[in-house]
């Protein structure tokens, strides 16, 4: 049995030494070169931090970034990726949670790193590339890793206003990667087209499918999604065969009419996740690419990116609602009622998941961890943790799971998970906002903020742009004399939804 992801990297680096592993618009790197680079970076880090320590990594959208991640792992550590394009205030919050002694950055992000409330040591990746790899030190560090050691901490929205760091182990990651590769039939002939930011959960497939199976990944330049005609040209030039994209990423080319001028000729498989797929856009993909394997995937970061998958075999219509399907290998998925009793077949309950894919919890946050990672209420014989997703689902007579939305106020917007409570907590910090309510207009994929007070729309937007990631900035701001209230004093959200336009 494998003890860490490094077992896999060691093997693929040898087997595919001269094959391209990662490529971006500026260059490429082979498996052999990549592996050597992780040893260089790993040695530099191992001289500075003990094993088991967190390494914050802030590096851009290029081929060196995955090497920074795995360099931290080579040092016997785990990494916490940070998106340098996020506002300073958000990055400071993340630094506050992770409390790393060391931050590895690329040169382009040095200035950003220096501007943060971070009192540890900043290491510039480009400056350590002349380090002599110390094989003895590295193999000593590698031997400290067990399959339950943390691999990374990835941050997601938290309802209290502070982001939560989900800790994932080597074992969980490998279980998921193996399961998804089996469904998508990924092997060393595949080239993936990376859409997700590299610090985000959805990028783990683009990073770890190459490490595990010898596939290659092309990192697509970010602004090609704004101009989708060149996007398809790129997919064809790079002979991309597999895409694991957010639903939003799949929608954009279809929405902007990219199929009128071309199509991805080499594409064989398309896996999408992150939110509910509007089938009018999937239909366009199917019409132009009928032989592609389409897979709808569902699941949270807390269960290593996913839980269930559904292979779309039927031709969809505009109003088709796709099921979320069956559990991946090594995932056990079941439903619980409000009172923690089992949900009957056909009825709605909360989707719960267990297995070796459960996250290790939220970094430095026992309270939140214990709230959602709990003893299986159906098992009083031995310790069995489950994760309650907060999503509602039902199983049909064929054991296929269907999705019915959220129990709470978490939404999925543009592929990102957002707590509406976090938007409100942020808005309340703005001078001139007295009270507010954030709501999501799903049909138009628009975040609304209804507020009282004398703040102008511009003040609010600028504050959000400075403090929150772009996907968390409300697009429509509506000033009201007073928020409508229910008899119990709570905000009347149904009335507010009547103001959507």
């Amino acid at each position, binding site marked *: 049995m494998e003890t860490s992801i490094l077992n896999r990297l060691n093997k693929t680096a040898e087997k595919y030494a001269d094959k391209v592993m990662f490529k971006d618009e500026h260059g490429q790197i082979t498996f052999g070169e990549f592996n050597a680079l992780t040893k260089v970076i790993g040695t530099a880090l191992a001289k500075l931090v003990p094993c088991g320590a967190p390494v914050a990594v802030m590096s851009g959208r290029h081929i060196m970034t995955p090497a920074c991640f795995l360099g931290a792992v080579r040092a016997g550590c785990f990494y916490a990726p940070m998106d340098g394009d996020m506002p300073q205030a958000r990055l400071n919050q993340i630094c506050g949670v992770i409390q790393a002694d060391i931050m590895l950055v690329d040169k382009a992000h040095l200035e950003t790193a220096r501007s943060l409330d971070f009192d540890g040591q900043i290491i510039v990746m480009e400056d350590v590339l002349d380090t002599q790899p110390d094989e003895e030190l590295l193999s000593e560090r590698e031997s400290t890793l067990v399959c339950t050691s943390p691999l990374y901490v990835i941050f997601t929205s938290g309802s209290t206003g502070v982001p939560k760091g989900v800790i994932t182990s080597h074992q969980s990651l490998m279980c998921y990667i193996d399961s998804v590769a089996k469904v998508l039939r990924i092997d060393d002939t595949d080239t993936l087209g990376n859409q997700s930011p590299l610090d985000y959960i959805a990028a783990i497939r683009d990073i770890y499918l190459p490490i595990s199976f010898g596939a290659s990944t092309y990192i697509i330049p970010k602004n090609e999604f*704004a*101009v989708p005609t060149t996007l398809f040209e790129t997919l064809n030039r790079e002979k991309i065969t597999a895409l694991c994209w957010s639903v939003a990423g799949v929608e*954009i080319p279809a929405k902007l009419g990219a199929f009128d001028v071309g199509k991805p000729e080499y594409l064989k498989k398309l896996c999408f996740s992150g939110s509910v797929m509007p089938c009018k856009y999937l239909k366009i993909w199917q019409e132009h690419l009928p032989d592609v394997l389409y897979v709808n995937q569902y699941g949270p970061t807390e269960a290593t990116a996913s839980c269930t998958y559904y292979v779309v075999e039927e031709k969809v219509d505009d109003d088709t609602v796709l099921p979320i399907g069956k559990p991946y290998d090594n995932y056990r998925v079941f439903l619980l009622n409000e009172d923690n009793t089992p949900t009957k077949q056909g009825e709605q309950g909360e989707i719960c998941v267990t297995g070796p894919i459960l996250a290790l919890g939220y970094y430095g946050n026992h309270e939140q961890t214990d709230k959602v990672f709990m003893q299986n209420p159906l098992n009083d014989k031995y310790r069995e943790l489950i994760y309650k997703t907060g999503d509602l689902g039902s199983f049909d007579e064929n054991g296929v799971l269907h999705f019915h939305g959220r129990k709470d106020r978490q939404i999925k917007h543009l592929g990102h998970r957002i707590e509406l409570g976090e938007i409100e907590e942020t808005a309340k910090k703005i001078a001139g906002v007295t009270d507010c309510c954030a709501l999501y207009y799903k049909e138009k994929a628009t975040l609304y903020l209804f507020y009282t007070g004398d703040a102008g729309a511009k003040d609010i*937007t600028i504050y959000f742009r400075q403090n929150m990631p772009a996907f968390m900035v409300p697009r429509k701001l509506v000033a009201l004399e007073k928020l409508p209230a229910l008899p119990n004093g709570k905000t009347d959200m149904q009335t507010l939804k009547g103001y959507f336009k």
Partner: protein
Amino acid sequence: MDELMQILEELRPDVDFENETALITDGVLDSFDIVALVGELNDAFDIEIKPNNLVPDNFNSAKAMWNLIEELQDE
């Protein structure tokens, strides 16, 4: 042009559309902004922005967008 500025201002009140000339190239506007913007411009000016029009040159500045709108209105 005023109507365009109003749409842009509402879309991204934090951006200086009067002076920015590399909105796409510098990544000031992202793909989600463009999707929202294309829909609004099509409706507001009764035009149809085609995929071929979606190149950075046409969206890098408010002026460039206005030229595109005028061009499409003439068709």
